[in-house]
């Protein structure tokens, strides 16, 4: 397997680490410190936007050129555990995010297009590489 991006070593704790401590003037009462729940909410907001705005497409190119898809690919190491959690609930095209983000496929080429099989492979890979 070839990696163009580091394999996430923060599986299971990525969201918890994503805490900015930068003060902001957007709040009138002191400093704003995003919490883990803020991070998770932002992930699901991006995910739902992608799902909603690509709902009627069958063409993978149209589905994967959406800005929300690109955002998930770029932040995949941070949101890896959230994606895996979502895939455990229901197989979905989120496997394409993982394929593109880590430039690897933990499944046989014969499984390409079979979303449940691709999902199972990514979940198994995540379980094997969990800290």
């Amino acid at each position, binding site marked *: 397997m070839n990696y163009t991006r580091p394999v996430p070593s923060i599986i299971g704790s990525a969201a918890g680490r994503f805490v900015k401590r930068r003060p902001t003037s957007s709040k009138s009462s002191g400093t704003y410190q995003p919490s883990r729940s803020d991070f998770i909410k932002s992930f699901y907001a991006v995910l739902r936007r992608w799902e909603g705005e690509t709902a009627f*497409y069958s063409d993978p190119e149209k589905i994967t050129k959406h800005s929300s898809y690109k955002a998930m690919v770029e932040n995949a190491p941070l949101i890896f555990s959230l994606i895996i959690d979502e895939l455990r609930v229901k197989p*979905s095209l989120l496997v394409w995010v993982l394929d593109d983000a880590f430039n690897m496929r933990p499944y046989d080429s014969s499984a390409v297009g079979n979303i449940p099989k691709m999902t199972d492979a990514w979940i198994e890979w995540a379980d094997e590489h969990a800290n």
Partner: protein
Amino acid sequence: MSMPIDLRNKFPRIADIHSKKTSDRDDYYNCIAWAFKDNQRNWWPNHKQSYWPVNASNLTTMEAFEAWFTEDGWEETSEYELEVGYEKIALYALNGVPTHAARLLDNGTWTSKLGRYIDISHEATELEGPKYGQLHKVYRKPISPTS
């Protein structure tokens, strides 16, 4: 999956798309897979992410679709209705680029999987509009005893 909005803008010929729903939404299969009676895989002439029965250039072109249709024994027809002894698939295109496929049912209506969304039952031209473009071509294939 969140509910897409502005459906009348996308499908202006259908007043209430959810009244035509025949399945729940899921990512397991897409329109062209459903046209070929596969509800387990995403099909597209793009081997990177999807299944396609023959070699493809990974470009969404009419030629890529027609190469498979020809290989699988389909021929173009001007008849959109039921014909004894034939099954039919419709291909939609926007500016000459394939966008969607549908399959004719035994009851004379068409069935479609709308991308990642739901299956619906509809008339052939009802899906025409800004999302899928126009009904481009209809193909037919003799029904084999095993199909």
